[in-house]
């Protein structure tokens, strides 16, 4: 997969990276980059990067193409007000590494700017105030108003999403006001929240479309009124790029492929695996499963599929049924890491050991990572990342658009699996926190105090 090629960028010598960056900065200094018109976005990129999907990037050679920085960014430092050289540690934490950066050139630039900006220190007291009060003035005197119209804010992940958005917004001095609404899964309120932000002349509106396509008319209306509307989720609604600016999400199929490749690697003699699916009718599972099957070796068979409601109890019930029929599994896929704790309880209830079992997950939820450690780390488990920075990417995409960049209609992050180890369980964040969140641990603890 192409994303694997991208990961080779991480191995580049620092000296080459620095030289490339210096050359790009020097080249860009001749232009008035901040004043670039919207429709010329991307055209400032140096030659050799004109393929829309970035396939001409020198991944195979392990060296950046001319005009690319070591992470594949094609914009010069400072263009559209952003840096495109992220802190490697933050990149590893938020995305699991450079291999998860988007393939598409412009999306990659937005992602790099997002992560680079995430390392800018902000006033955490102010961030906490905004988070607690759902609305705040940033004190910068900036003219822009940005709002997060969340479809649901009642779980930890969404509360962290909210803080990621706030922290990212606080890095922009142009932003003077931050707003937040929680529709609590009420479709009418979700629509009303988006329209309300638009009516209040918010310049940027981020939204998680829990209500699905029902929100598209509201997004379209807000866009027509001049707001930059960005969504993030596991699947797009409406027609991003037309109905609204863009959406950011993960490459669902790539994750299925990654799981399949890992099973194939770890089970050379074949074996039986089972899949714990999510809620019936969800659009993610069929893609996961199809792509998993595409990359599985022929001697590995999917012997059971059980649907759930993405809850621990549902995972427990599903796993119990799977174990009743197949008590000697070699592998188990449970995309929601947190709920997989329920699957572990099913093994416990049945008096069966999980030793040697290979498990695959989408999210690296701390409860699972710590439960894995508490259970003695007897399974070989792999996770992706929580992708909590999607909200940050949306924020930065909107700001780059305002600065004149030609933001792509989709910002799709790639996949890089991480093996779970004893160090994966984080004790410096709340038990329900996310290890891949870019919210500082001490701030997470202040958000969820003892």
């Amino acid at each position, binding site marked *: 997969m192409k994303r694997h090629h991208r990961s080779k960028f991480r191995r580049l010598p620092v000296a080459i990276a620095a030289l490339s960056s210096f050359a790009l900065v020097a080249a860009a200094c001749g232009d008035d980059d901040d004043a670039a018109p919207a429709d010329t976005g991307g055209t400032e990129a140096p030659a050799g990067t004109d393929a829309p999907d970035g396939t001409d990037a020198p991944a195979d050679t392990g060296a950046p193409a001319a005009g690319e920085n070591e992470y594949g960014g094609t914009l010069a430092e400072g263009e559209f007000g952003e840096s495109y050289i992220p802190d490697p540690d933050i990149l590893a934490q938020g995305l699991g590494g450079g291999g998860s950066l988007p393939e598409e050139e412009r999306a990659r630039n937005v992602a790099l700017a997002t992560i680079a900006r995430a390392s800018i220190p902000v006033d955490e007291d102010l961030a906490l105030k905004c988070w607690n009060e759902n609305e705040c003035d940033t004190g910068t005197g900036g003219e822009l108003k940005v709002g997060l119209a969340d479809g649901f804010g009642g779980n930890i992940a969404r509360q962290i999403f909210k803080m990621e958005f706030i922290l990212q917004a606080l890095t922009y001095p142009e932003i003077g006001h931050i707003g937040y609404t929680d529709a609590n899964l009420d479709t009418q309120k979700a629509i009303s929240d988006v329209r309300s932000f638009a009516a209040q002349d918010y310049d940027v509106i981020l939204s998680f479309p829990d209500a699905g396509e029902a929100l598209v008319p509201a997004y379209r209306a807000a866009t027509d009124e001049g707001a930059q509307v960005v969504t993030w989720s596991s699947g797009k609604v409406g027609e991003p790029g037309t109905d609204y600016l863009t959406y950011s999400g993960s490459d669902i199929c790539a994750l299925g492929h990654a799981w399949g490749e890992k099973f194939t690697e770890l089970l050379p003699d074949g074996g039986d695996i089972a899949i714990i699916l999510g809620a019936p009718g969800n659009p993610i599972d069929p893609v996961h499963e199809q792509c998993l099957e595409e990359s599985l070796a022929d001697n590995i068979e999917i012997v059971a599929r059980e*649907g*759930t409601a993405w809850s*621990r109890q549902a995972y427990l*019930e599903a796993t119990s049924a799977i174990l*009743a029929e197949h008590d000697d599994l070699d592998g188990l896929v449970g995309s929601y890491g947190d709920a997989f704790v329920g699957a572990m309880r099913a093994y416990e*209830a049945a008096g069966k050991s999980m030793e040697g079992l290979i498990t695959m997950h989408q999210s690296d939820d701390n409860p699972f990572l710590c439960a894995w450690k508490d259970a003695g780390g007897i399974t070989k488990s792999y996770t992706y990342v929580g992708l909590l920075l999607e909200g940050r990417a949306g924020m930065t995409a909107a700001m780059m658009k305002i600065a004149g960049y030609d933001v792509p209609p989709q910002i799709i992050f790639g996949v890089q699996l991480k093996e779970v180890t004893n160090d994966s369980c984080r004790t410096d964040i709340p038990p329900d926190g996310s290890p891949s969140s870019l919210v500082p641990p001490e701030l997470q603890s202040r958000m969820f105090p003892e």
Partner: protein
Amino acid sequence: MSQGGFELSDDIGVSGVGRIAGFARRLGVGNVMSNLLFSSRFVTIWIAGALLLIVCRIIAPNTLSSSSWAALLPLGSIVAVVALGQMLVIMMGGIDLSMAATISLLANVLVGVSEGSDDRLVYAMVIVFAWATVIGLVNGLLVAVLDLNPLIVTLSTGLILLGVTSQYRVGTANNSTVPDSLSGFVFERLFGISKTFWLVLLMALLIALVLRSTAVGRRFQAVGANRRAAWMAGIRVRLYVIAAYVLAALAAGLAGILVGGIVVSPGVDPGASYLLGPVAAVVLGGAALSGGLASATSTWAAAFFVTILNQMLRVLGMAIAWQNVVFGLAIILGMVISGDRIADVVGRLLLRPGIRNLVGDAEPPGTDDPEPTAGRFPVGHAAAAEHG
């Protein structure tokens, strides 16, 4: 109410069945027939359960494997706890749709108050039951005193509780697991069987005993069967209605504790699985939705019927969408062949001329043979209680 029992109407509802019962009881061979009539509404689920086990044995034998039972027993027991609480409310002619939300809130309260410490477990459980009492009192007062529709009232309080849970959940993020002793208890075994199973079985037997053999239990049924008659008999009707909602909320509290123990760290809505399953169990257990008639032991059995049916469908590898369809059809079928309908069918059989002549020749009923419970509440309900 007809004491003589000879004036039989075509409308053989609950009161009709009661008349038939009175008729049958006064006959020399009456006891057997009376038992047959009144147990018919409750015995169906036991027969259905046996058939389900046979079907499982044939088409999905692994449903009955030891590893399957290891999860089925505690999970089915939680359904049974909620169903027993729901049964008490349905016996009052009401329904409590807030139980699922109550479970969600109280499971999180348990986590928040206990802070994962075994030392605080008992304290946390006391708090859980205290809150359950408050929730039950609110529901009960709204239904019994303000005479509001129980379906709407409990749906509304359920929504409120879900909102409160979402907010409370944010604050408990740093203390989000139940104490180890609780998470260990739910899967611990006594005589090779889950302790949770024994606990809930004991609870079901206790409820059955109280309903059948105590004055309080009899009055409870009387209020459910006919509030006006119960009120005229001097029973404090509102008190019993409120008590039913409080007991249901306490059952939800216990379920919340057990759910917390099973999943270790409940999410925002761990009670979602317990909205309709327990109601289905109460109906399949033979309870009359109009109130009064119900059997704790049959409701307990029906809870396991529902749980095993679900497990069988999963083991068969059926897609979850089809699982829902088959499960729904099974519930409808169960309703068709249980409760009032089966009692009606048995009652009509008893009224067939051949049987009437047979029993009539055996021993004519005397009008001076008062039914012990007659005059307090319908005979049918009293007899049903004996099978509780």
